[in-house]
């Protein structure tokens, strides 16, 4: 979807480094989400945000930090990357709260932690 962009598309980092994944949406959706996708696990929610300055933990939040100072941006930071955080990360937005309306996903960031 053109309305939600993630950067970078690919990232390789070393264990212990801090890395930030960016997410920007142009729909003015209130809700934004970060998911990670791993084989056999489907999509697991890391963090979500209901509005600017409101964030909450998802299913797998440990090792991640988020912020939402502006409605359109929702960066995800890995404070000290570990190999277990190697994954594909998807940002998504929706008009309504979880399950109330469709999720619109970005193209994803493939992160490799060496």
């Amino acid at each position, binding site marked *: 979807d053109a309305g939600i962009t993630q950067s970078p598309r690919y990232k390789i980092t070393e264990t212990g480094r801090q890395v930030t994944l960016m997410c920007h949406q142009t729909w003015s959706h209130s809700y934004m989400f970060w*998911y990670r996708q791993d084989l056999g696990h*489907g999509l697991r929610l890391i963090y979500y945000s209901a509005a600017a300055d409101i964030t909450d933990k998802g299913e797998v939040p440990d090792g991640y930090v988020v912020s939402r100072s502006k409605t359109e941006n929702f960066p995800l930071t890995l404070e000290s990357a570990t190999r277990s955080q190697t994954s594909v990360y998807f940002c998504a937005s929706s008009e309504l709260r*979880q399950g109330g309306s469709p*999720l*619109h996903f970005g193209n994803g960031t493939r992160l490799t932690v060496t």
Partner: protein
Amino acid sequence: GQQVMQIPQYQHVQEGEDFTTYCNSSTTLSNIQWYKQRPGGHPVFLIQLVKSGEVKKQKRLTFQFGEAKKNSSLHITATQTTDVGTYFCAGLPQTGRRALTFGSGTRLQVQP
């Protein structure tokens, strides 16, 4: 916590054959959504089911929501190569933590 199981994990069919994926929740759902993810792509919303026993069709795709709102299915009639991808269900529980939980997906391969 809530679990959403999806079967099969993988299915390989000949073009023209039918395909069905099943989704089962450990708890009663408020609604269920279905997404399709093409290889190398991102999940794309297909449909949302809300009512008990609901059936919705999109061309060759038929979606059902169980009477007890604990299971759902997606059936594709006469598959085409464009149907290739992974199909995910995502359920929202009626009670408890109101978080959308995704199934692990069914990967569909279609042999021309």
